[in-house]
C-alpha cells in the first residue's frame, strides 16, 4: 500500500500513452471526423441545391407549358379564322362563277333567240311572198308591184 518506485514506472507509462495518443491516434481520427462533417455538409448543400433547381425547373416547365398552350390556342384561332375566310372566298368565287355562267347562258340564249328570229323572219318573208305571189299571180304584175314588195320585206326585216 506504500508509495514506491512503481509510481515512477506508472508515470513513464502514462506519459508514453499520452504521447502516443497525441501523436498517432488523435489527429487522424479527428481529421476523418472533420472530413466526414465536411462531406455531410457538402451533401446537404448539394441536396438543397438540387431541390432548388428542381423547383426552378418545375417553374420553367409550367411557364413553357403555358406558352405552348397559348400558342396552340392562337394557332387554332388562326386556323379557324382561315377556314372561315376560305369558306367565304369559295362562296364568293362560286357566286361569281355562277353569275358568269348565267351571263354566258343569257347571252347564248339571246343570240339563239336572235338567230331564231332571223331565220323565222326569213321564212315568214318567203312564205308571205309565196302567199302574195300566189294570190297576186293572177292580178299583180311582179314588176309593177316590186316596190311595194320590197317595202314589205324591209318592214319584216325591221320587225
Amino acid at each position, binding site marked *: *500500500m*506504500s*508509495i*514506491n*518506485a*512503481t*509510481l*515512477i*514506472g*506508472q*508515470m513513464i*507509462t*502514462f*506519459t*508514453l*500513452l*499520452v504521447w*502516443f*495518443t*497525441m501523436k*498517432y*491516434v*488523435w489527429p*487522424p*481520427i*479527428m*481529421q*476523418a*471526423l472533420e*472530413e*466526414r462533417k*465536411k*462531406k455531410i455538409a457538402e451533401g446537404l448543400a448539394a441536396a438543397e441545391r438540387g431541390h432548388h433547381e428542381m423547383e426552378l425547373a418545375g417553374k420553367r416547365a409550367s411557364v413553357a407549358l403555358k406558352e405552348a398552350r397559348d400558342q396552340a390556342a392562337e394557332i387554332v384561332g388562326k386556323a379557324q379564322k382561315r377556314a372561315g375566310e376560305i369558306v367565304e372566298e369559295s362562296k364568293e368565287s362560286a357566286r361569281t362563277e355562277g353569275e358568269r355562267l348565267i351571263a354566258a347562258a343569257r347571252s347564248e340564249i339571246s343570240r339563239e333567240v336572235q338567230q331564231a328570229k332571223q331565220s323565222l323572219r326569213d321564212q315568214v318573208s318567203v312564205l308571205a311572198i309565196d302567199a302574195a305571189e300566189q294570190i297576186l299571180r293572177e292580178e299583180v304584175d311582179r314588176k309593177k308591184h316590186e316596190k311595194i314588195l320590197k317595202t314589205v320585206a324591209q318592214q319584216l326585216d325591221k320587225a
Partner: protein
Amino acid sequence: MATETHDAGGATGYIIHHLTSLSAGEGFWTIHLDTLFFSVFLGCLFLFAFKIAAEKVTSGVPGLLQNIVETLVEFVDTQVKDSFHGKSKLIAPLGLTIFVWVFLMNFMDLIPVDLLPDIASWIGIPYLRVVPTTDLNATFAMSISVFCLIIFYSVKVKGGIGFAKEMLLTPFGPWLMPFNLLLKTVEELAKPVSLGLRLFGNLYAGELIFILIALLPWYVQPLLSFPWAIFHLLIITLQAFIFMVLTIVYLSLAHEEH
C-alpha cells in the same frame, strides 16, 4: 467469484493475500510488477485498438471498431470543448487516454476476484493484484503527471511572474501574502491528491467488497456479487469520466488569466 480453498490464516489471510502486490526490490525501490504489467498491457491494448482504427480511418462509412473509437473520441472532444476554450493539441488526447485507460484498468475489477490470481498461482506466481487502479502508485502517477501539466501550463500561459503573482496576491491581496501562498499551495496540492485518492478509494473499496463477497457461502455470492457488479459497472465508468473531466477542468483553469 469462484469458491476456493482459503489460504492458511482464514478470512484475514485470504484478504491480505488478495491485497498484496507481486513486488520486486526493497524499500522505496520496490516495484509492483502486477500493477505495471496490467497497466502497460491495458495501455497497449488501448493504443493497439485505437491505432488500428486510426490507420483504417475513413471519412466514408465507418466500420464497427471505427464507430466505437469515433464515439469515444467525439465524446471526449465534446467534453474538452465544453470546458476548455483555448487551443491545445495535448488536452483532448490526454483526456481520451485517461478516460479509456482508467476505464480499462477499472474494468479489471469485474473479472472474478480469484480467477487471475488462481491461474497465476498455478504457474508459480504467489501474489497478483489485477486492478492497477487499486494501487495508489497507479492513481497518483496519473494525478501527479496531471499536476505537473497544471504547473507547466500555468507558468507557460501566465509567465513565471504572473504565476507567482497569482500564488502570492490572490485571493486576499498583497497584505496577506504568506496566507495567500499557503492557501494557494493547499488549493493546488489538493488537486492531484483528491484526483488520485478518489479513484483509488472507489476502486479499492469496490475490490474489497468483491473479496468480502467471495468469502461468503457460494449460494449467497451471486445474490450479492451480481447487483454489486452492475453497480460497479456504473462506478468504473463514472470514475474514469470524473478523472478525465477534472483533468480537463484543472488544465483549462491553468490556461485562464485572472
